[in-house]
């Protein structure tokens, strides 16, 4: 079995007194296609934000490719191989489709010290090494001069980035939109461009936050095929947040259900679908009672509105 690329161990976060997420466990390996579902406000996006470093978890641990990343900046976590899309599309609106992807396609080439060496140093000092920072700063400094002097090596790198970005647009079927501003793209294409952009960072794990939101049935069908294809083509592990049950049940092999920040169920789609706690969280007690199913015991304060 391959190593876990992304791991959350009893992760949780509190905002003031509010427990937005509690005891969250997750494991994504290469080739996994897992789902994260739950009613509105269940903590799905909060989970994403903890995984990607937008928030630092107050409890537990997040590991990306074996490294504990608590407290690291989102861009550092991204460099380790974790990329995401956003629920409310966050493209660089005034930039062309190509440039949106090119921003994410950062070059692996570093002018003086190799990235691997810096990463190794960081790993040994658990992320806080002044020497690594200095090496990084020197790299950046030289890199800017290469751009200002327009050195041949720099131009070659730019061409390489452009080729990579174009290839990604091709994969996502967006080649014809290459030079169009992102904000002028139709909704579905904006969603696809966001995925292309995330792929530009060469992730090993891809987190998709409601990729099908606002799509029609046919587009959703295409998306399901595409997500599977991406997983195989780029050897990814994928975690999907989705409201659309059909989509989640259709593609995910393993589903985690959140409600009020707590994991209430986990397992294969069929098992999760039958789970009374899940049905209750989504459809309420009355649905259970009407269909002769057992109503699970719970505290009276956590009233969940029926959807």
């Amino acid at each position, binding site marked *: 079995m391959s190593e876990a690329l992304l791991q959350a161990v009893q992760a949780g976060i509190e905002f003031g007194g509010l427990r937005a997420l509690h005891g969250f466990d997750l494991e994504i390996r290469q080739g996994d296609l897992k789902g994260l579902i739950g009613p509105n406000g269940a903590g799905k996006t909060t989970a994403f934000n903890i995984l990607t470093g937008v928030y630092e978890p107050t409890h537990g641990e997040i590991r990306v490719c074996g490294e504990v990343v608590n407290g690291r900046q989102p861009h550092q976590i991204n460099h380790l191989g974790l990329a995401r899309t*956003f629920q409310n599309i*966050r493209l660089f*609106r005034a*930039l062309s489709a190509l440039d949106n992807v*090119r921003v994410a396609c950062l070059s692996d080439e570093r002018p003086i010290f190799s990235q691997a060496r810096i990463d190794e140093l960081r790993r040994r000092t658990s992320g806080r090494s002044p020497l690594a920072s200095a090496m990084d700063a020197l790299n950046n400094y030289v890199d800017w001069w290469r*751009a200002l002097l327009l050195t041949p090596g720099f131009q070659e790198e730019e061409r390489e980035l452009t080729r990579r970005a174009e290839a990604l647009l091709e994969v996502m079927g967006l080649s014809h939109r290459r030079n169009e501003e992102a904000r002028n793209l139709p909704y579905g294409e904006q969603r696809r461009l966001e995925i292309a952009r995330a792929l530009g960072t060469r992730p090993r794990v891809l987190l998709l936050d409601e990729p099908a939101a606002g799509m029609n049935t046919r587009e959703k069908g295409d998306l399901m095929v595409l997500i599977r294809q991406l997983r195989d083509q780029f050897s990814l592990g994928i975690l999907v947040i989705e409201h659309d049950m059909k989509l989640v049940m259709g593609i995910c092999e393993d589903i985690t259900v959140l409600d009020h920040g707590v994991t209430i169920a986990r397992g294969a789609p069929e098992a999760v679908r039958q789970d009374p706690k899940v049905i209750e969280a989504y459809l309420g007690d009355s649905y259970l009672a009407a269909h002769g199913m057992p109503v699970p015991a719970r505290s009276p304060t956590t009233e969940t509105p029926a959807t």
Partner: protein
Amino acid sequence: MPAGIRGLVPVLIAIVVLAVLQLVLGGAPFFVYLASIVGVNVILAVSLNIVNGMTGQFSIGHAGFMAVGAYTAGKLSLLLKDLAISGLPAAVSDQVQFVGTLLAGGVAAALCGFLVGLPSLRLRGDYLAIVTLGFGEIIRVIVQNLDVFGRALGLSGIPQTSSLFAVWFCVFLVVLVARRIVGSTHGRSLWAIREDEVAAEAMGVNTTGYKVRAFVISSFFAGIAGGLFAHFVPIINPGSFTFVKSIEVVVMVVAGGLGSTTGAIVAAVFLTLLPEVLRTLFLQLGGLDTGASLAQKVDQIRMPVYGMLLVLLMLVRPQGLFGTREIWDVLPRWWPGARKGIT
């Protein structure tokens, strides 16, 4: 031509062109003075555009960085005034000193940019504006209260070693730097920060790092502009680097279109020359023989006219002259060279 030096070709061309201009026009003092003022403002506007336009961070303390450059370079020049580098003719030695002091001014300003930027660029929007505003005022107040810098009287007697060539070569450099940044992966990262900071960070862009670097480059050139300024005006005093000066530069950037380098250039040239042109225009309308009182009235009217023109521009084109585009993007299609780009 070896590919290694291709990037330097524009520099060589600029040197030749500017040297010719210097020979032809260098003898007219008023023209040189006006061209230098315009040049300094262009440097300020283009450099501020790197932060305010490309990176989308609102800085309104540019006069502060200019002051750091002006006072550092000016004071150094005063100290080195009576010294000459042995073995060099006096004029050459002066120029070497001039370049040295300019660089010192630029580096001092860049250092300030780094010190201000590092803690404050984690702030967003209005908060950053307040910090930069505070920085500009602090610099002015410090200078105003230090004997070394002549307090409110300022520094006078700085060797006037600046020239048309020097100023416009610096203009050329800042424009080249701005354009090369835009065309590179670094420029795209800056744009990404402007468009959506959260997304940029999630896509692996070290947003704080990039913001600080943009800030440092921008303040370096503001320092250079200040250094140049100190070497062609008879006296520099804190009054030249007030909040009003910062706002003037911000106005140029906004009027030209946030993010447009050519827009910043056009706006800086236009807004610097406008008061001068209005003065001449009014004087000619009123006639020179009607006496000083009319000339004074005219002088009072030109600033409101300047203001009204700005309001008009913002009403007609709220995104600035060129928006985020460059001049060749907005030229009509039949214009030779339109929509091709020059990087």
